[in-house]
């Protein structure tokens, strides 16, 4: 019989206001095996833990039940405290009487009754708990960063700085991501390229960092400290080692009509191309969808002009297998294409553009060489209308948009408005907003400058429709403060469209077994306390893949993720989860049912000798579990018909004891 101590936490009034904690302590004190039962204001506090440790010592407790908040919050805290007192940490169980009782029930009698039942279930389980000891597994001292935008770049640089190897996998031919396409950055108005490209060069020159550009993650196996990742290096038909990035091929290529994705399709590039001048790696790539040689077998101009013989039309995709201790998701975002909003005319009017398109139209390296000209007739626009919140802040039921605020649009629109007014003071600029959100250092000051110094017309209201009439964009909008409906003849309309997680994020999350929210942003292990970690051990989050954020925030989060990775890679060994499957060889049939459902390949079979009847020896095929590889899901335990496979910490009998206790009322 165990000697169990029960501790009921008040959680201030979080629990005690709804649950009669004294009654719970008294009722659970009468349960078989319970030798000590008490309530305390804050069990997780120093003095609460001391109370528990004193009781373990004085009452020679062999098991502990804490009735408190969710075990996802403080199970580890209480287990650690028990361990300090010499009690095996896995002899501690939590009854969740806060999230599952006091916070959702109002009636004290009802809540108290439920708290007692949950306490009983935990006691029933502890009766069957066995001390568990964690095994250890080694750590591969290399990290993988998926995505080479500013988030991935910063994370990689910080990890490399600490002396660990890092690989960056980037699906585009160059690293740099969205920041490379941006003209200027708020609120300081530095040129984005001027602050990003030196970092890109740092990455290229760092001998700890290896860039897999034009590559994608193919599969991920393993677990924290021991990931095995297959990376597909897509054929770029150019030998990366030979190519010097001289660019002659990109000038001579006769196929000139390829939409240039770097300039948001506002101009064209060649079929063989280097996305932009400061690309890293500065290596050409052949776009097989447009290359005449690839399509018809006739051309070969690039091969002829290449002085180093880097062109290889027969190049194939290559799969590279690499091992990592940690993986960082930095998959970034895309601005939504607002084609679903017919009334805003994006699909029908060339002069209705998205904000990222405007960035290219204002960038010195863009299609207009930095002079703001509208796409349709390449004329200078004299009236520019900005529309905020396009596709953001929609109702959850709304199929056209996203329910979240995209966070960066208010600031970059203020930046655009200001830059236009500064460069072209003859241009009238209207910004239609719902709210102007500027919580950030020097952000509101920046927005006020746009209004006060630059005379940008901020109108509280929305644009209802945009219709093109003879090269004029007829904008109909509301001005809610004056109660007027405005009709503006504009030359250019700019839509601040919602930020969307990159499409690749979903499949990557599945490979990483990292969870995502309904908007396809990665979820954090804890929204407040572990914001750069995924709930899946060894997976970290950097940048917009976790939620909308601007560059300074992205960079801080990227460094935070790097710090977490460094903390992991600095360890030589990781303590394994001791709650793993275990095969009872005396019961095992060797039928392989369990092996078929194990996602980790943790189960192996061996012929072993057993004692048969009448002093004979039998040889039977039996399963055994590698505890370093097993992650403790329990799939095998149900596949096993003979009950030979069981899960430590969540055994068949423990779970049934909980069932029994809950149903016995």
């Amino acid at each position: 019989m165990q000697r169990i101590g029960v501790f009921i936490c008040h959680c201030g009034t979080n629990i005690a206001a709804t649950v009669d904690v004294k009654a719970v302590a008294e009722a659970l004190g009468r349960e078989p095996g319970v030798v000590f039962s008490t309530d305390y204001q804050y069990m997780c506090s120093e003095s609460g833990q001391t109370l528990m440790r004193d009781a373990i010592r004085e009452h020679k407790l062999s098991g502990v039940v804490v009735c408190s908040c969710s075990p996802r919050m403080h199970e580890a805290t209480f287990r650690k405290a028990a361990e300090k007192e010499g009690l095996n940490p896995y002899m501690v169980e939590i009854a969740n009487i806060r999230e599952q009782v006091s916070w959702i029930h109002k009636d004290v009698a009802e809540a108290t009754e439920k708290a007692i039942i949950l306490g009983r279930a935990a006691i029933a389980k502890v009766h069957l708990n066995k001390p568990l000891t964690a095994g250890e597994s080694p750590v591969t001292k290399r990290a993988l960063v998926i995505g080479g935008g500013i988030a991935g770049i910063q994370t990689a640089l910080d990890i490399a700085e600490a002396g660990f190897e890092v690989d960056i996998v980037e699906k585009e031919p160059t690293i740099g991501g969205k920041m490379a396409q941006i003209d200027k950055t708020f609120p300081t108005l530095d040129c984005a390229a001027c602050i990003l490209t030196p970092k890109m060069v740092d990455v290229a020159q760092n001998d700890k960092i290896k860039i897999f550009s034009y590559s994608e993650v193919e599969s991920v196996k393993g677990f924290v400290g021991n990931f095995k990742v297959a990376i597909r290096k897509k054929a770029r038909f150019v030998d990366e080692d030979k190519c010097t990035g001289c660019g002659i091929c990109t000038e001579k290529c006769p196929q000139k009509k390829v939409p240039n994705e770097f300039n948001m399709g506002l101009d064209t590039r060649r079929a063989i191309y280097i996305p932009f001048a400061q690309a890293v790696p500065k290596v050409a790539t052949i776009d097989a969808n447009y290359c005449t040689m690839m399509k018809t077998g006739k051309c070969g101009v690039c091969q002829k002009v290449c002085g180093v013989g880097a062109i290889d039309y027969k190049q194939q995709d290559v799969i590279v297998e690499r091992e990592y201790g940690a993986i960082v998701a930095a998959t970034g975002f895309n601005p939504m294409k607002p084609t679903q909003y017919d009334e805003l005319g994006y699909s029908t009017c060339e002069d209705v553009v998205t904000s990222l398109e405007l960035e290219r139209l204002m960038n010195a390296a863009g299609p207009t060489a930095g002079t703001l000209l509208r796409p349709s007739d390449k004329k200078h626009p004299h009236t520019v209308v900005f529309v905020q919140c396009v596709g953001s802040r929609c109702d959850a039921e709304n199929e056209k948009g996203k329910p979240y605020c995209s966070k960066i649009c208010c600031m970059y629109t203020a930046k655009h408005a200001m830059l236009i007014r500064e460069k072209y003071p003859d241009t009238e600029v209207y910004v239609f907003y719902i709210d102007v959100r500027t919580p950030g250092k020097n952000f509101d000051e920046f927005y006020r400058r746009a209004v006060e110094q630059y005379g940008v017309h901020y109108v509280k209201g929305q644009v209802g429709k945009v219709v093109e009439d003879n090269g004029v964009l007829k904008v109909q909008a509301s001005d809610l403060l004056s109660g007027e409906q405005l009709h503006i003849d504009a030359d250019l309309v700019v839509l601040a469209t919602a930020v969307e997680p990159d499409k690749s994020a979903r499949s990557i999350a599945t490979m990483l077994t990292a969870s995502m929210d309904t908007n396809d942003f990665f979820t954090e292990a804890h929204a407040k306390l572990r914001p750069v970690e995924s709930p899946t051990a060894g997976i970290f989050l950097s940048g917009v893949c976790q939620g909308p954020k601007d560059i300074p925030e992205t960079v801080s989060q990227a460094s935070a993720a790097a710090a977490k990775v460094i903390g992991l890679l600095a360890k030589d060994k990781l303590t394994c989860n001791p709650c793993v499957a275990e095969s009872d060889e005396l019961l095992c049939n060797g039928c392989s049912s369990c092996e078929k459902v194990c996602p980790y390949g943790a189960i192996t079979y061996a012929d072993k000798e057993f004692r048969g009847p009448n002093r004979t020896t039998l040889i039977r095929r039996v399963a055994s579990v590698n505890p370093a590889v097993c992650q403790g899901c329990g799939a095998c335990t149900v596949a096993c018909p003979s009950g030979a496979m069981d899960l430590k910490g969540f055994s068949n009998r423990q779970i049934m004891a909980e069932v029994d206790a809950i149903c016995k009322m």
Partner: protein
Amino acid sequence: MQDVNYRPKIVAFCCNWCSYAGADLAGSSRLAYPADVKIIRVPCSCRVNPLFILRAFQRGADGVIMAGCHPGDCHYTSGNYFARRRMTLLFSMLDYLGIERERTRVEWISAAEGAKFSKTMNEFAATIAALGENKRLEDLRCKK
């Protein structure tokens, strides 16, 4: 006639990574559901053995619900896919034996879906309350 004081007993098996976290979110968002629902934490929905479900009915449960990560989101990659097949077959068998299909349910609830957790449990509790006591899979020895 149903006893006016009848309160159903409902056992909810929740996977640790998604649905248990969803229940936590329901709690921290103060989204109430009936106290008749009691949660048992399991590492993954694939840990739920049909034995546990029958055991719950035997010991007096009137409804059993299993909640796990959405298909494709399993923390262990594939656990919920196996669980889904197992439960599909088990529930179909219970139905075949004439045991009310509505007494058993599977729902996929992510860590972000506190509202769905609460809504599901409210619905399920209402369904079970309407069905009344479990008679077809009861074990009288386990009743008071």
